[in-house]
């Protein structure tokens, strides 16, 4: 462990699962300059040697070239000369002249000035697209299943794997700094405590194990601090962000205290398996589970009973709360969509997020609460705006298989994914963002480019470039297929509507309402 910088903030971010391990290829531990100001993964003298790094970025053309200032000066001079030559100052006339000059300049600018500006925007878009080096680094390990961040150190990530191994990653150097076998069978969940002193893991062997967050001294063995045998099977774990309670799910939802070996209470509604659990990071007593009977169940850790249940058409795989909007959460569903719900209005989702072509396996919010990232069985990762129904970006690479888990870094810069071909990948959250030191002038330029992009966003050509993405063939094909199916269904519905009596009219059901079967009290 060469780099661990304590940060000033405290609190745990829950919910990331991934996995780990095989050959421990630990390259030489490198001395690393600890700069507290900026953590730049690109700064290391020597990153791990067996990691592939793609990080290219082309800056756009200089703005001065696209917008010639000398030309404007010349033009203004010409206009002034033209209008005011051979005229003596006259107070009555002056106002009129000024107006004329202004109009003239305005007209000329309209003709010449605006088009380069437009062209500039197009160029910015194009360069950003080609320069979007989003794939940052990857390393081979075994299948991942779960992962969680160190809540205080951005450079630490913990992953749990299908073979029961837990790995702690040093993200700055892209090496695994520590690994140990935690469970027999799968590691189902892994979570840091709120003060980041311990790691809790749950596995298929019905045990909860507590590990120290720091690596043991040289010569010491990796031994769990505590092992709790649970009466019920365990499928997931989540830690309360404020107090020392955590919750597990499985056959039942159990609330535990860190200092006790028995659950404080068990909450049960029906007999189905609960496979995900997630604490609300803002209203910390509220938590939610996804059950295998296609339902989402809300709990309050202080109540003796569950609160409410909503049943969707298909199973929800994962649930993530919005860290900035206490009442909203998003579920990753088996039917290729994600649904954002308002806890207070469960009968219709606020938004349905489309675009994936296969089951969505995991979802995680960005710490700003504006976006979230989703992993899918279709071997892609997508980034959505939390209030939009279509994705902002799609990440994929040739060798990445079914993505199992995904997480967004706590500084809003990176996205991590674990996939079936045993890799943990690290992506930039904003593909075209420049890594490394950004000088103030550069920053201003980037901001300006961004503002221009926003301004011209509705222009068709700009829109086209901005939304153009290369996708793997299987995704494209699947998308076409899904579109055809959907169109067919629409035609069918229209036909049915056309040929049924007015009295037995076929209702128009909005897409939002289609997917929620019922809300149970």
């Amino acid at each position, binding site marked *: 462990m060469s780099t661990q910088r304590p*940060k000033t903030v405290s*609190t745990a971010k829950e919910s990331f699962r991934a996995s780990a391990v095989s050959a421990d290829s630990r390259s030489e531990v490198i001395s690393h300059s600890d700069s507290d100001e*900026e*953590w*730049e993964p690109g700064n290391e003298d020597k990153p791990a040697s067996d990691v592939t790094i793609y990080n290219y970025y082309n800056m756009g053309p200089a*703005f001065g070239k696209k*917008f010639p200032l000398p030309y404007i000066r010349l033009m203004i001079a010409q206009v002034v000369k033209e209008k005011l030559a051979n005229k003596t100052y006259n107070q009555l006339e002056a106002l009129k002249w000024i107006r004329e000059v202004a109009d003239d300049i305005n007209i000329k600018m309209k003709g010449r000035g*605006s*088009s380069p*500006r*437009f*062209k500039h925007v*197009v160029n910015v878009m*194009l360069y950003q697209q080609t320069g979007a080096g989003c794939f940052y680094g990857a390393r081979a390990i075994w299948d991942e299943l779960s992962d969680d961040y160190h*809540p205080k150190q*951005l450079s630490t990530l913990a992953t749990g794997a299908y073979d029961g191994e837990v790995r702690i990653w040093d993200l700055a150097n892209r090496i695994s700094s520590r690994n140990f076998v935690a469970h027999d069978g799968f590691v189902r969940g892994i979570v840091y405590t709120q003060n980041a002193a311990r790691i809790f893991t749950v596995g298929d062997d019905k045990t909860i194990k507590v590990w120290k967050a720091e690596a043991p001294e040289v010569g010491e063995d990796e031994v769990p601090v505590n092992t709790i045998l649970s009466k019920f099977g365990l499928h997931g774990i989540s830690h309360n962000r404020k107090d020392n309670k955590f919750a597990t799910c499985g056959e039942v939802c159990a609330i535990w205290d860190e200092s006790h*070996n*028995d659950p*404080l*209470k068990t909450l049960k509604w029906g007999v189905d398996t609960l496979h995900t659990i997630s604490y609300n990071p*803002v*209203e910390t007593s509220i938590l939610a589970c996804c059950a295998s009977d296609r339902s989402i169940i809300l709990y*309050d850790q202080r*109540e003796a*009973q569950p*609160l*409410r249940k909503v049943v969707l058409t298909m199973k929800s795989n994962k649930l993530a709360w919005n860290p*900035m909007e206490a*009442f909203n959460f998003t579920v990753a569903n088996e039917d290729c969509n994600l649904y954002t719900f308002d*806890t*207070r209005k469960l009968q219709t989702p606020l938004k349905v997020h*489309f*675009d994936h072509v296969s089951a969505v396996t995991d979802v995680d919010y960005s710490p700003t609460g*504006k976006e979230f990232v989703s992993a899918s069985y279709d071997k892609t990762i997508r980034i959505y705006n939390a209030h939009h129904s*279509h994705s902002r*970006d799609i990440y994929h690479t040739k060798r990445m298989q079914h993505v199992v888990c995904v997480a967004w870094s*706590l*500084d*809003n810069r990176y996205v991590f994914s674990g996939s079936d071909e045993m890799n943990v990948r690290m992506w930039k959250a904003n593909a075209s963002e420049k890594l490394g030191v950004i000088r103030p002038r550069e920053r*201003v330029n980037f*901001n*300006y480019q*961004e*503002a221009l992009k926003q*301004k*011209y966003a*509705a*222009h*068709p*050509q700009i*829109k086209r470039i901005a*939304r*153009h*993405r*290369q*996708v*793997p*063939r299987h995704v494209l094909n699947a*998308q076409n297929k899904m579109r055809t199916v959907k169109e067919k269904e629409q035609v069918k519905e229209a036909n049915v509507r056309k040929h049924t009596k007015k009295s037995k009219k076929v209702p128009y059901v909005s897409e939002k309402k289609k997917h929620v079967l019922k809300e149970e*009290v």
Partner: protein
Amino acid sequence: MSDDEEHYEPKAHKKLLQAIGSLGKVQHIQKSTRDERQSRQDEFQLVKGVSSAETDNTPRAVGLNDLVDILRTSTKHSQTGKKLKNIQGSKKVLEKPLEKPAADRIKRTIGYEGVTKKLGRWDAVVAQQRSAETQIFPLPSETVYVNTSANARPLNTRVKSNLAQELEANKRKLRELRKAEIGDTTDEKELAKQERLLLQKKLTRDELFARRKELAYLKMRESQKSAKARMQNKIKSKKFHKLQKRQKMLEQMKEFELLQKTNPEAALEKLNALEKSRVQERASLRHKNTGTWAKNLQIRAKYDKDVRKDLAEQLAVSRELTQKKQESDSEDETIKKRVVPEEEENDYDPFNPWTKRKATEQTENEKGESGDANWRQYWTKRNKNEKLLEEHRRDLEGVQDNDEQEEKETIQKPLTEVKPAKKKLKKSKVKIENGWQVEDISPTDRKEAKERPNSKAIDDIFEKHEDQIRAKLSKKMEKLKERVNKLKEAPIKAKKAKKKDVLQNLKSLALKKTKQQIEIDEPLNYEEDKNSQNNIPVQVESNTESTETPAVDTIDPNKVTTLVFTQKKGNSGGLNDALIDDEAAEYDEEDAAAERQLTISQAFEDDDIVADFNRDKGKDSELKNTELQLALPGWGSWAGAGISKEVMERRNKRLLLKLAAPEKRRDENKDNLYINESASKHARQHMVSSIPFPFRSLADYEASIRAPVGRNFVPETAFRMLTRPAVITRKGQVIEPMTESELVKPDRRLRHIVDRRIKRIPKVPPKAKIA
């Protein structure tokens, strides 16, 4: 050894005997000792205690009497004992608790209510966050800076010298002396401690109270709900259920009225549902006197007057119900009749091609934009047209058969409206206008129309009939108008109602955005991955090409406006009769709305546009300046004048540039067609086709596009403000989820009137105080 063995120890012996005695009853499993708090005890831990049955005096259960007996011993408690006795006598048994599922459901609802309330606190914060132009993460938390250096005592690390100790002791003495001088005898430390304790105590007490209150409230809610649930299940009274039903009906009616105002579509559905329930009741033979009750009464009816009355009432009710149906049926028919004349499409002006086309369009347009705002306008216009038409026709027909018609004309006036409609209706039998079904006129009407010339005798009958119809029509018309007015309001209000979406609600709460940014929520455009590297450079090239052509790369906001409307035209299917004001650079919204309603016929009343267009066409196709003389005067005649004319001419011929004849216009031989060829096709793909999301009006959007952002146009500060990103984060800084400190606490409600008055007093700003 043997001595030792035989040595009798009574204690040990007794123990041994006991052990032997209880050999069969030994408990092998130890009673578990709990070291964890547990909410649930499982049966494995419940060990039967060693039974004390063998002891003779088995303690029986303690009864109330024992307690009372004890209490009786002291005079002090004898009263309490009596009370206890009395309580036992009164035998008020607690109610059986609700069934478990029902009780659980109640608990769950109460819990959920609490959670929703709790989550609702965040609404304002979230709305504010969403509407903020720039969000900075991590959220700036309110930190209070206290300069502690002034109060901080330096840590004493040095060993004090004797002198220093003496000095300190002296100081202490001095202080005490001073205090004594003043007469202050309190110990400061003690006081501080007491105060702290008091504070702590008070705090905990308050908290306790609050908690108890909350718990009590929850308990009360739960018991209330359970009591209600229990009660309602039990009630058997028919009257109660009848009343409840009536109440429900009333509630529904109220709801319906409310809906009628806010969401007419839903109201219509509701009305249908109500109607359906009525129909069901009617169909259920409720009031037909066929039930057992009625049959029994029928037997008695022969002898009993009251019973007969009851039955008659019942029948009356049923008659009333069926009566209503007939009424409603007739309503439909009359509506149909009334609407028929709308179909008439005979206002045909042979001289104006535009109006002709418009007339046919009108119906189409109306079909497209059902329930429209200019419905009334349409009607008034139609009425006027009808009048004019009548006169026109009279003039035409008057020559042919004025003798015959003169008598009937007065009668036929309303019917002429019907007559021409027939032809049209044969083609399209059922049309939908503004949501009303329009069907073919009833055959009797047609017959009447045919018979008219033959039979003068029937005139009277017709007159009667017409009067009836007219009366009904006027009634219906009024109703229709009302409904139409409602419909007109409908779309606007419906939209408003939809806004109740939580997200939207938040937005309404939010502050107004000053810098609007376009939001695009569309699927990404996909392309296969295969030859991605090849594709991109090609795109770049093509794009630069297209942008370099001068005609293409300018985006004229005026053209943007035209496109918007042409699109609409395409949507509505028919030709759009909206007028487009090309020159208005500052496009006024309200004007636009008004202008859109100006029909082309109105706009071009005076001038002949067709001729204008043709003139334009002719101008374009004329041959103009097909030859260009490139020779300049003096060119080639270096030696001065006197060069032979022939040579000059030959040379001039050589320098004559012949241009190709201009291309033929695409619409050259098409009479009434004018194709605008100056509009650039290439430009079109760069133009915005519709107003993007946050903008409501074209003017706003144009203004935003026109406004410069770059530092070459605006001052530096403005540039910085305009280009400020929406989200600012810092590298390497953990962004924490929101915390409770973000919540704005509501002001405490002041109970006492004086407190309230004090609160109302405007606060004096601190500066003024100082001054």
